[in-house]
């Protein structure tokens, strides 16, 4: 029997997406991105001179990402401050974004990306990446292209697109697999791959195909939001 999604979505259907650029006046670039009830905001500061000086790289700018859940964004209050989880997500997010940036154009500088989750209903890291990618473009940084991200799930034997909290906790059959992926838009360059669960190796290419399709939609929404901000 095919898995039925609790909110009635089709298996390959994402939750309603909203995206807005220019939400933090102080930042050089900023954006909000949400998948249904998951809301991420991101701010970019830089490129600016990196201090202390010994951390500077004379060949390129350094990208520094900080991702975290705000304390009230989850059911049980999250203790403020970095956790092992948030440090890991910050780092993989940094790696998911940096290949899209022309960091060599800004030696000795740092680009700071701050990502916070206001409301969490799973897929927070991918929502954060989508917001950060728009914020980097909004800051006017030269980019190869935008980065788009989505979480593919496997519920027992069925693949679903854009995992929500109910699905993350699914336990029947082969249980739930969460497979967040990011890629550079319009390419087959995958910049984030993480996975938890139970999935057969031959299913991975099928999941990547779903990523590609979903990212086409996300890319259009990101571009539209950026154009609206430019008006």
């Amino acid at each position, binding site marked *: 029997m095919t898995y039925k999604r609790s909110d009635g979505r089709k298996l390959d259907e994402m939750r309603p997406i909203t995206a807005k650029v220019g939400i933090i006046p102080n930042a050089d670039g900023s954006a909000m991105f949400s998948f249904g009830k998951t809301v991420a905001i991101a701010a970019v500061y830089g490129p600016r001179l990196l201090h202390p000086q010994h951390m500077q790289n004379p060949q390129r700018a350094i990208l520094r990402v900080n991702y975290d859940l705000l304390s009230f964004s989850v059911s049980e209050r999250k203790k403020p401050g970095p956790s092992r*989880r948030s440090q890991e997500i910050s780092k993989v997010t940094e790696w998911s974004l940096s*290949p899209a940036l022309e960091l060599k154009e800004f030696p000795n500088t740092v680009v700071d990306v701050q990502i916070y989750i206001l409301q969490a209903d799973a897929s927070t890291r991918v929502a954060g990446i989508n917001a950060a990618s728009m914020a980097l473009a909004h800051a006017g940084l030269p980019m190869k292209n935008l980065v788009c991200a989505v979480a593919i799930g496997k519920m027992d034997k069925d693949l679903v697109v854009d995992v929500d909290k109910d699905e993350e906790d699914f336990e029947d059959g082969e249980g739930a697999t969460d*497979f967040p992926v990011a890629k550079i838009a319009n390419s087959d360059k995958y910049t984030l791959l993480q996975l938890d669960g139970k999935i057969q190796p031959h299913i991975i*290419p099928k999941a990547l195909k779903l990523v590609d399709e979903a990212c086409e939609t996300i890319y259009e929404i990101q571009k539209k939001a950026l154009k609206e901000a430019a008006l």
Partner: protein
Amino acid sequence: MSAMDTSALTQEMLVKMFAAGKRFDGRKLLEQRDFTVEYNISNKAEGSARVRMGKTDVVVGVKMEIGEPYPDSLDKGNIMVSGDLLPMASPRFESGPPKFNAIELPRLIDRMVRESHMIDLSKLVVVEGEKVWTVIIDVYPINDDGALIDAAAIAAVTALMQTRIPELNERGRIDYEKKSTKKLPLNDGILPLNFTFFKLGDTLLIDPTREEEEACEGKIMWGLSHYKNKEHMIHSCQKGLEVPLNREEIEQMMGHLPKLYDDTLKKLQKFLK
């Protein structure tokens, strides 16, 4: 071994060699170094193992503690994986707050063990809703010569297979004096292992030495098992470093993983009592 970074010259050389399918130590690109597993590293641990793979050397000890269950799993025991990249193991490891690599290693082992359901956590309840066992897996490298996570995964899994649940005294505390023969409950036929693919130029390889690892520009870790002896199943994955992976590379890895797993499991058999 010097503390200097791999030079650009070495990296250039390695790009050419890898492209021709060659390595400094004569191995093939997808050939894992031989390894040995030694047990009972510490008689104070409830289970322990030491894995030597080439010059890479990792110890894992398992300690069992009694604690409260998590509110969302009152009928299950807990798993915790920690450890540290000891400065003893490499001139590149430093004391102080854990850097990213020291967070990545235990988290990947944690997800591999947890998601594979290797440990039957439902059998680790002492008093439902109140007292459960926590399985604490501590990973420490003794000498890092590359592919630390792959070696640590072997050590973690073999240490768990040796683990005994301590006896409790009448007050419900652990009696460290009594020798226990009660094995940690494991689910039959689940033995997860980790394989990290590294990328340099357009070449993929596994089990790099430290020098090769430092020259590489991309990597991705895959934790998998031959789930319940039925089919290969991936339980954990994480891509690291900046260089993206393309679809073809990911598909290639999916083709290689089942065989890599089967070959390593075969080598591991002689160490499993």
